[in-house]
């Protein structure tokens, strides 16, 4: 999958899809994001980088290191893609998210947030979807606030997540799933 158009087409035609990091594209039920990769824009003087979700974290880190900058959140394994980290991360990563481009379960391409530090127009969807495990939408592109290397390190805290097992919370999460993926495509 190399283009947004291809991704949209696959989502629209699928009855069920699992977003995967394997390079296997042959299955109709797998959506491989690894080949949708690369830095889209990087403005060191703005502390902002925009990357495609399939970019390997180590490649992203290398780009930043050239300008003495770094991602200011905890990274356990930099062989993973930035999209897979976003899908499983918590608030330490979400603090650095400025915007996302996504494709919802209907195949619509949507943008939330952007490349600016301050943006309170509309609900904060780009941070809502952090930790969404690929169950609500396909994340195609993410913009991050980055930090000078020396300051980024002190912000990397491995925050342990806790399960909040309130049935009402579960119900709200299910309703939000239906907002983004009304046909239940993403499994």
């Amino acid at each position: 999958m190399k283009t947004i158009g291809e991704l949209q087409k696959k989502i629209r035609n699928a009855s069920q899809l699992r977003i995967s990091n394997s390079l296997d594209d042959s299955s109709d039920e797998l959506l491989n994001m690894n080949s949708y990769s690369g830095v889209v824009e990087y403005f060191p003087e703005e502390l902002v980088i925009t990357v495609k979700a399939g970019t390997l974290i180590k490649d992203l880190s290398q780009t930043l290191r050239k300008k003495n900058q770094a991602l200011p959140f905890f990274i356990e394994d930099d062989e993973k893609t930035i999209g897979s980290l976003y899908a499983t991360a918590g608030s330490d990563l979400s603090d650095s998210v400025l915007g996302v481009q996504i494709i919802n379960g209907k195949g619509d391409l949507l943008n939330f947030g952007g490349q600016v530090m301050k943006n309170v127009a509309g609900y904060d969807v780009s941070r809502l979807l952090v930790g969404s495990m690929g169950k609500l939408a396909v994340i195609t592109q993410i913009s991050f606030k980055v930090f000078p290397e020396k300051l980024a390190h002190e912000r990397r805290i491995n925050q342990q997540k806790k399960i909040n097992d309130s049935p009402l919370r579960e119900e709200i999460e299910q309703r939000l799933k239906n907002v983004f993926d009304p046909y239940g495509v993403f499994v």
Partner: protein
Amino acid sequence: MSTISQLKKSLPKNIVLVGEENTRPFECDGLSVYKQKPMAVVLPNEVGQVKKVLEICRKNKTPIVTRGAGTGLSGGAMPIKDSVVLGLSKLTKVISINPEELTAVVEPGVRNLAISEAADEYDLYYAPDPSSQIACTIGGNVAENAGGVHCLKYGLTVQNIESIKILTIEGDELVFSRDDEGLGLLALMTGSEGLLGIITEITVKLTKKPEVAKLIMAGFDSVRDCANGVAEIIKNGIIPAGLEMMDEFAIQASEEFARPGYPLGSKALLLCELDGSEESVIPDVDTVVSLLSKASSIRVSESEEERLLLWKGRKSAFPAVGRISPDYYCMDGTIPKRHLADVLEKINALSKRFNLRVANVFHAGDGNLHPLILYDAGVPGELEKTEEFGNEILKLCIEVGGSITGEHGVGIEKLDAMCFQYSDAELDVFHQIKAAFDPQTLLNPGKAVPSLHRCAELGNMHVHQGNLPHPELERF
């Protein structure tokens, strides 16, 4: 039985306000050009009473407008016709200060500055500092995701809260924390402008006070040199605690008002605050001074009094402009910093076109512009002209990849501008998120997200990431 009589019957008499005279103080928030009296105002003393209000309003399908101190600048807390205003300003308990964990647990009506005052004995403070911090409440800060002058280094409200307790419209209590497994519901609630739930308790993060803070003031002969200076500082790995810019008109107004000793005649002024440990701040001050080589004047604060005096000019920029003009309208767009000089030039061109003066103060570090448009509401048509000018500025912000609001919120003020920033499909997601929490649309209805119908009437002028739809068409 009507909503009013049920409220009166179920709650202490003195917390339910009705009638023209009693509700008038609540008819608007900080955006006073829009006014509407509510059916009633309820000022609960404890969370149990909030639940009661929700129950009565839900049964009667009466809209609820939650309010903190009413200092918001976008009409987010302006009452809706036949609504109940739920004012949380009496819930002012600081429940605990936890210096070991660097947190404080507070009720929503606690003022922003009061948290820092309560934490002061531990040498801690609450970092986000909106300019209304003396008066604004922490509940309102969370509802608006409030900012301030120190966001570049210390973050917005969303990065400075640990957890919140909310009541849903059904009256059920939920806790959202930073360490929750699952969706980012804490972030979703932050900045949701009272449309999704009622915030009843907040655990905020506290920050250690810096050992030392130094303010560098630099005057420039051109806005572009000043903007380039900002980029240089950040490119060199320095993150100032505050990085503020003012244009010639704002420098002049502030100097006349507060006499901080600003360089009159400069086209732009930069205030750069560095804080932290002595050993990091002192060399960084030298670096910044050398990077600002194009400055026509430069001064570093020698004492705490001097630092505060230099800040006083910037912090009094709004009242200073208020003294010059009968009315002013404060904008809140954000842009990528690299477009600062260009955007400012275009704002000045618009100022000539609309024949309205504008003073510019920016949070330059995070690209948050606060152009103040000077007008006279007494002149027929001038408010409308001002709003049109304002919308042109916001379109400009979106065209260069920014946002229509950095920290003031959408409220009722920027509903039209939301149509420029988002497509119908994106707005529809917002409406559905609202419905997931509040299916009857009782919480602050009609605010923050425009109806698709409203955007269609405006001609669907959705501008995205520097691209107008159908750029081949001429526009007038």
